[in-house]
């Protein structure tokens, strides 16, 4: 095929994908807006989602954030440090099925759907400009991401790797991670052309601390079953799509107007596993349809958006970086860590707030997939009900998932079959069950 023909085909493909992506986004937004528990206070987040997911999203985000962007994957790079250097941390994500299809032809069949989708969405922009990226060496997909991006024709990117030590309890690892933070500071300073000052860092810590506090209040409401997971995920998903201060202000304004609905009849679940990203809200939708209310999660696009509040005694620049390093490493529950028992303990510690655990595995997301077995075993020993759902961004398995969720819902406490009578158990009754005895004698079977 000639270059010209290939180019023309690519343009058509991108246009077609753009249309499908817009449709996916519009459908999810319409579903959210039509909900009974919709409040005007959600508009800010709906607007961010609407603007932030078109192919020109980076322009929109840059404009809204009012700062140059630093592209991120995962959640280990301290946002405060990036912000203090004058940049806006823009965590790249996409739950678009259409975007995933755009890149699928050049990728392994069994690849993390999130990565497939991100690579597709990145193609939409042409990827012809050099962008600064911070990439922690978390899973294999992230480590190979720049290579794959290049295969799809992206320009040479300005990459900064964060070598993530995978044994977080080891002192040596913690030292190595601190070194990585110092190197990151150097990278950011080189990029901005100015030193990160103590005051700038303190200000940035305050910005994200306030955001974390607002999110914590939202989490508390959710623990009580007073906020649907759809809204919760919309709010957390949109954090990186605009100025952090504005997002916090919008959330603080929304909080007093909540709760927007109370449904005490629903069974409460804890959602664990792979992240869920807009516009793919398939799982939150199905959970609600099955009568399940998410009261907590440990997904990195949800409650694990922030690793927690940063506390420090030494307010020198180094002391603050040390505090950030500790928080973003020790406080992280990513399954790529070798010693991640804290994740199970974290779920167990919240057991009073839920009736069971739904573990979401994005097909091809190996760390979560593998860890699901350990978590299942640990939780079942504690008598906590557990279901593992493996899926991707396609909608074709919705009915299958719904069947499982409905049945799972009925296995949770406060539900189930009436205990059978002694007769039903075959106790104290010498006559066998009528059907077993009589077989098909008096009925008709037309198969």
């Amino acid at each position, binding site marked *: 095929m000639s270059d010209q023909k290939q180019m023309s085909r690519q343009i058509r493909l991108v246009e077609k994908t753009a249309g499908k992506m817009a449709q996916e986004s519009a459908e999810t937004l319409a579903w959210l807006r039509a909900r009974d528990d919709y409040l005007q206070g959600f508009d800010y987040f709906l607007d961010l989602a609407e603007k932030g997911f078109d192919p020109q999203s980076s322009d929109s985000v840059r404009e809204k954030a009012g700062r140059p962007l630093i592209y991120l994957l995962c959640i280990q790079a301290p946002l405060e440090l990036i912000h203090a250097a004058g940049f806006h941390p823009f965590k790249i994500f996409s739950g678009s099925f259409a975007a995933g299809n755009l890149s699928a032809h050049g990728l392994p069949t069994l690849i993390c759907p999130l990565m497939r989708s991100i690579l597709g969405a990145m193609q939409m922009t042409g990827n012809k400009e050099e962008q600064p990226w911070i990439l922690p060496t978390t899973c294999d997909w992230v480590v190979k991401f720049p290579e794959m991006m290049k295969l799809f024709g992206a320009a040479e990117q300005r990459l900064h790797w964060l070598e993530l030590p995978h044994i977080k309890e080891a002192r040596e690892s913690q030292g190595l991670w601190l070194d990585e933070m110092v190197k990151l500071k150097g990278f950011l300073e080189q990029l901005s052309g100015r030193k990160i000052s103590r005051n700038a860092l303190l200000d940035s810590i305050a910005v994200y601390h306030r955001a974390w506090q607002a999110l914590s209040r939202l989490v508390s409401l959710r623990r009580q079953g007073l906020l649907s997971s759809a809204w919760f995920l919309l709010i957390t998903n949109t954090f990186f799509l605009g100025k952090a201060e504005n997002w916090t202000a919008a959330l603080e304004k929304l909080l007093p107007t909540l709760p927007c609905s109370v449904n005490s009849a629903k069974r409460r679940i804890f959602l664990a596993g792979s992240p869920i990203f807009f516009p793919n809200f398939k799982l939150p939708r199905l959970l609600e349809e099955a*009568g399940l209310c998410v009261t907590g999660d440990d997904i990195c696009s949800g409650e694990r958006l922030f690793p927690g509040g940063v506390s420090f005694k030494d307010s020198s620049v180094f002391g603050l970086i040390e505090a950030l390093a500790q928080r973003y490493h020790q406080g992280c529950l990513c399954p790529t860590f070798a010693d991640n028992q804290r994740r199970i303990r974290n779920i167990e510690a919240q057991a009073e707030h839920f009736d069971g655990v739904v573990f979401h595995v994005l097909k091809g997301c190996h760390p979560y997939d593998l860890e699901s077995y350990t978590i299942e075993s640990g939780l079942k020993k504690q008598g906590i009900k557990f279901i593992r759902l*493996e*899926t991707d961004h396609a909608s*074709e*398995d919705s*009915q*299958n998932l719904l*069947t*499982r969720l*409905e*049945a*799972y*819902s*009925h*296995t949770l406490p406060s*539900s*189930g*079959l*009436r*205990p*059978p009578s002694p007769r*039903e*158990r*075959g106790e104290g009754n010498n006559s*066998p*069950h*009528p*059907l*077993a005895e*009589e*077989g*098909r004698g*008096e*009925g*008709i*079977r*037309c*198969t």
Partner: protein
Amino acid sequence: MKVGKVGIGLDLGSTAIKMVITDGEKILCGLSTATAPGQEEIGRQLIARGLESLDLKPEQVGSITTTGYGKKLYSAADLNMDEISANAAGIFRLSRGQARTIINIGGQDLKVITLDNDGKVLDFRMNDKCAAGTGRFFELVSRLLDTPLSEFGDLAGNSGHEVQLSSTCVVFAESEIISLLARGVAREDIIHALHASVARKVAAMMGRTPHDDAIYLDGGPARNRGLVEAIEDELLCDIMVLDDPQFTVAFGAAIARQLSAPTDKP
């Protein structure tokens, strides 16, 4: 027929719609037909035929509970019930409280359900986007071999040579079977290999599920004795099959109201 109120269960599955009328104790009537567009009308016709065959009036129907993928497509239902809970309720009642593990092979699902001593679902596993080991798999092989499914059990018993059907993918299994046929492999051996392949799939799904207790196989393919033997051989234990295993889920739905089983109002 002299009965009081009867319960009706309608299992609107992916390949067949099954209808059961019960007095709460036994299947008075079981009817099924292939799934096709217009499921509401098909369900209505099955119920009408069933009532007529038992000489029952519509006023004698206590409740209609639907289950299966199409459970919400029947607007006249009093209750909806997921098929896993319906399966558990049906088998537990029909086995007189003996069943503790159910292997269900449906049109496009394969499920393993474990029950507690009260018949409540303790845990379950279900295939995701893969038709291997399901009724569709059997239908495909039936077409390829031009052999009715009802003959599979007897033919597998006549297998003389061990053949491996290695694929766990329906699509690839098709080409594998075509190549076996081209090599002159007898259809008896292919059917035997198919049963072994499905049995391995079942065993993989059972995984670490404890299965010392009574295991019941149901769903349409459970009528295939060759498959039952293959699963027994793979799991190294006895497998129980009740009469009319294709109706157990519909029966579970039919007794839903009586059992206060987990249901939702449509």
